[in-house]
C-alpha cells in the first residue's frame, strides 16, 4: 500500500510543467490571501454596508431648556464650505457617511457637532483613531457655522445646562450612580477595555450636558428618564466642584487617588510608629 503510494508520487507527471507551475502559483496566492485577511470582528458582518451611527443623541426631556446656537443662511453656507474642506472626506459630501470609515451625520443635531469640534476631538487624522481631547481646530465662529450646517439636516436639539440651579449633594449622588464607574468619583477619568475614559477637568458644563445625552464614542447615552434636567444641572455642578474639592480630611495631596493616598498614610503611620518605638524603648549602650 505504502509502496504503491510512493510509486504514484514518483511517477512522471503527464501535466505540462507550465500548467503545474501556474496551478501552484494560484494556490499559493490564495493561501496567502486567506492568511493575510484580518480576522473579522464579531458582529462586523451584521454592520457591514451600514453608515448609520449605532446611537443618536437623546433629545432633551419635554419642557427642558435647549441650547441655542446661532443660525442663518449665511452661516449654513459658510458651514457647507468648511464641511466640504474638512469633514466630507470621511462623513461624505451629503453627510451620508462612508461605510466602515465614518458614520452618517444626518439627524445627529447640534449637540455632537458642538461637542466633538469644541473639544478638539474632530477632525480625526485617522478615522480608526480614538477621538481624544485636544486643541480645537476651528474657531468658535467656524464651529457655529458647522453646527448650523449639520443641524440643517435635522436632529434633536442640544441640551442646555445651568450648574447654578443644580444641587451639589444630588450631583454627587447622581455622578456616583451613573458616571463614577468609568470617570472615577474625582472625575479624573481612567480606562475601560477598548477605550480611554477622559478626565473631566477641562470640560465645560455645555460639553458635559452634550456628552451625557449623546454618549460620545463608547460612552453610554442617558435620556431624560435616567438623568433629568435637575440631575444634569447637578452633575455639571459636581464636576465643576471636583476640580477644587474642599478636602475634609485636611490634606488633599492633589486628589491623586486612593492607592497613593494609602501609601502616604502608610509612610505617616510608619514614621509615627518609629517615634513611639523610640519613646518607649531603652538605649542599652
Amino acid at each position, binding site marked *: 500500500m505504502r509502496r504503491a503510494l510512493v510509486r504514484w508520487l514518483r511517477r512522471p507527471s503527464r501535466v505540462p510543467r507550465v500548467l503545474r507551475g501556474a496551478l501552484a502559483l494560484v494556490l499559493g496566492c490564495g493561501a496567502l490571501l486567506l492568511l493575510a485577511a484580518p480576522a473579522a470582528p464579531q458582529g462586523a458582518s451584521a454592520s457591514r454596508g451600514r453608515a448609520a451611527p449605532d446611537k443618536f443623541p437623546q433629545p432633551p426631556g419635554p419642557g427642558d431648556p435647549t441650547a441655542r446656537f446661532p443660525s442663518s443662511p449665511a452661516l449654513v453656507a459658510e458651514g457647507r464650505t468648511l464641511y466640504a474642506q474638512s469633514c466630507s472626506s470621511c462623513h461624505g459630501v451629503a453627510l451620508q457617511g462612508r461605510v466602515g470609515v465614518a458614520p452618517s451625520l444626518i439627524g445627529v443635531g447640534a449637540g455632537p457637532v458642538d461637542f466633538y469640534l469644541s473639544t478638539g476631538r474632530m477632525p480625526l487624522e485617522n478615522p480608526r483613531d480614538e477621538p481624544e481631547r485636544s486643541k480645537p481646530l476651528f474657531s468658535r465662529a467656524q464651529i457655529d457655522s458647522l453646527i448650523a450646517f449639520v443641524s440643517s439636516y435635522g436632529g434633536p436639539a442640544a441640551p442646555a445646562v445651568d450648574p447654578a440651579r443644580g444641587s451639589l449633594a444630588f450631583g454627587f449622588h447622581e455622578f456616583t450612580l451613573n458616571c463614577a464607574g468609568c470617570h472615577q468619583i474625582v472625575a479624573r477619568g481612567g480606562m475601560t477595555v477598548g477605550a480611554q475614559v477622559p478626565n473631566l477637568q477641562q470640560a465645560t458644563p455645555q460639553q458635559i450636558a452634550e456628552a451625557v445625552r449623546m454618549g460620545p464614542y463608547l460612552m*453610554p447615552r442617558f435620556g431624560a428618564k435616567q438623568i433629568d434636567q435637575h440631575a444634569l444641572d447637578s452633575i455639571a455642578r459636581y464636576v465643576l466642584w471636583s476640580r477644587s474639592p474642599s478636602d475634609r480630611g485636611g490634606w488633599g495631596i492633589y486628589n491623586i487617588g486612593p492607592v497613593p493616598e494609602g501609601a502616604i498614610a502608610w509612610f505617616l503611620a510608619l514614621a509615627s510608629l518609629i517615634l513611639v518605638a523610640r519613646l518607649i524603648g531603652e538605649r542599652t549602650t
Partner: protein
Amino acid sequence: MSAAGSGGGERPRGAKALGVVVALRAMRRALRGRARVEDPTVGAGGHAASRPPGAPVGTGPVDPGPDPSERTVPGNRRAEGAVVALLLGAGLLGFGFTIVYVAANASTQLLAIALGGALALLAAACIVAGKLVVPQETHVEERDLLLDEEQTEEVVEMVESGGEGISRRAALTGAAGVAGAGLLAAAATPLASLGPDLDRVHDTPWHAGVRLVDDEGHPYSADDIQVGTFYTALPEHGDPEAFGAGLVVVKLPPAYLHLPAARAGWAPEGIVAYSKICPHAGCAISLYRYPTYQPTSAGPAFTCPCHYSTFLPGEGGRLAFGPAGRALPQPPLTTDEARNLRAAGPFHEGIGPPWWSVHRGQS
C-alpha cells in the same frame, strides 16, 4: 499635634515641631526618672566589681551593698494595678468583639472599636509593665558552681523566699491570661464566617414572575429600556442588598444579539439582563460601553471596574477579556400584559465569585 498647633499661632512651624520633640523627650525623661526614684536598687543593686567591663554603670551612688542574691525588687503597687487593669480591659474588649460579631447586624464601627481598643490596651499594658514593673537593670551575677549541698539548699530557700512576690505575679499572669484569651477569641470568631454560603449563591431573589424595578421601586417597562445605555434593576419586594439582587439590563439591536440557541426566547425585544456581580471577585459591574459607530471602535460590552473582566451582552455574557473564569450568569426575561419586564426564571447558573464544587455544571 493639635496641642502643638493650638500652642503658638505666631511661632513658625519648625519651632512648633521642635517644641513637640522637646516635650516628648521631657516626658520620657520624667518616666525614666520616676522609675529610678521608685526603684532605688536600680543602678545600686549589684557590686560594681561584678559588672563585666564595659557594662553600663548606673548614675546612682555606687554602693558595695549586701550580697546581690539578697536584693529585693520593690513592687510598684500602682503600676502593677494599672497593668492588671489594662490587661483586663483588653480581655474584656476582646470578648466584646466576639459578642458584637455574633450579635445580628454587627456594626463594623463597633467591631473596629472593640478590636482596636483591645490591641491598644494590650500595647499600653506592655509599655507600662516594661517601664514601671519589670526591673530596669543589667545585672550579671557571678558565683561558683553549686557543688555543696548546703549551698544548694540555701539557693532553694532563697528561690522560695522569692515567693512573696507570687501574689503580684499571679495577678499579672492572670490578667495577661484574660487579655490573651479575649484576643484569641476575637481572632478566632471570624472563622465562623469562612466557607461558601451556598444558599445565597443558589437562592437568589430572581424567580419566574418577579418584576424588575429601579432603585426607587418603579417597575421597568419594556418601553423605558433604550438602546445605547444601561440600567440597574432590582427584584420587586426582594431584599435590594441580597447578593444576587442586582441586574444590569441593556437593549441590543438584532445586529448585536447572538444568544446561544438554548436561550432563544430570553431577550424580549432585544432586552437582556445579567447578574451585576462579576463572577471573578464579586465586584459590581458598573461599566458599559456602546459604540457610536461600531466599524471604527469596539462593540457593546460590560466591564468590571475591579480587574477589567469584559463580557459581551449580545452573546450570553461570554467573557471577552480579563481574569473572570466564566460568563456572566443570565436570567431569562419576559414582558407581561402591561409591558413590564419580569424574570422568566432563575439565573442559568450560580452567581458571584467561583467556589469549589459550586460551578461544576456549566461554565
